[in-house]
């Protein structure tokens, strides 16, 4: 389901305390509950928020992860990585899907 799954993962981290705890303790297992591609799981585990953003995931939702330093993402780490995203000047709005 791609991109949507990443967004759902981040949103659930905010709304479901059990899922959040599992992301802390066993992130790979937590991801099994979401419709993520193998690549998305790898990028999430690596905390590569720029690459996820480039594929269409929401920066707003990704940055929830910093609220609990999930997946190693402190605000400092997050900011440095996200600022490294490529080709991001003035992105405009189609629907973010697997195809984006």
């Amino acid at each position: 389901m791609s991109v949507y799954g990443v967004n759902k993962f981040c949103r659930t981290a905010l709304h479901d305390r059990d899922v959040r705890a599992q992301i802390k303790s066993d992130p790979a297992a937590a991801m099994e509950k979401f419709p993520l591609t193998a690549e998305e799981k790898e990028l999430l585990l690596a905390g590569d928020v720029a690459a996820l953003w480039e594929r269409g995931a929401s920066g707003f939702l990704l940055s929830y992860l910093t609220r609990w330093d999930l997946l190693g993402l402190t605000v400092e780490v997050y900011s440095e990585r996200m600022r490294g995203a490529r080709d991001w000047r003035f992105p405009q709005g189609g629907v973010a899907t697997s195809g984006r």
Partner: protein
Amino acid sequence: MARIVLGLGAPHSPNLPSVVANNPGFVEAGLYAELKNALEAARADALVIFSNDHFNTFFLNNFPMFAIGAAPATAGPNDGTPMPRYEIPVAEELASHIYSTGVSSGFDLALCQEFDVDHAFAVPVHFLCAHGKLPILPVFVNCFASPLPLASRAHALGRAIGSAIRAHEPDLRVAVMASGSFSLEIGGPAIPPGERSGVPDRAWVARVVELMRARRVDDLVTEATPSQMARAGNAGGELLNWIAMLGAIGDRAPAMLAARPHGHAFGVWRWE
């Protein structure tokens, strides 16, 4: 017949309640107090709030472009914002009237008969009507899930809601509010080093304020293109709430409009 007696605009930053609680002299505290005074002076019976969910009330499995909250009450915040939790009465009958009138005017509205709200509605309620005696009427505008509604469409929705209010039989005094930023990037590539959010387009904030002061709403609608709003950050679309509110109150100059360095502003539109 009902009439619109006041327009308001303000931010809903989730840190505002705690910041103000800890620093009562904070500028935002004074500005929100000014809006609260205007609202009380207007003796409003209901407060329509144009604001936007942040993927808390809704998610992408069913994300509405425009939704009307028509329930007896709502509650919030539902997103862990550090602030008191409120049970908030909703102007259900007016909301149902606005919903029906909007649909018969060709707006494809979603109907919400049971819902809670995130900081986008809870923060304004906290500062303006925490006493729980003023029914609100939430109008959810999609400012986050791409693609956003056109500015012209948000403005037309506001106009239609303004007309619907004026055609509502009970003799109500209705205040109308917009909440949201003009320029704000949260978690996207335009954030500053070491931060989670920032203001990528201060020139646009100044331009928005200039156009509002000059009552040039049509120019604002024209200039608020999808690319301009994207340039203003991934929360830059929250301007659409203000554009809708201006559609509802009609062509008026603000009595007060104060831009803040955080990419947002406070405004009061008053004509009585």
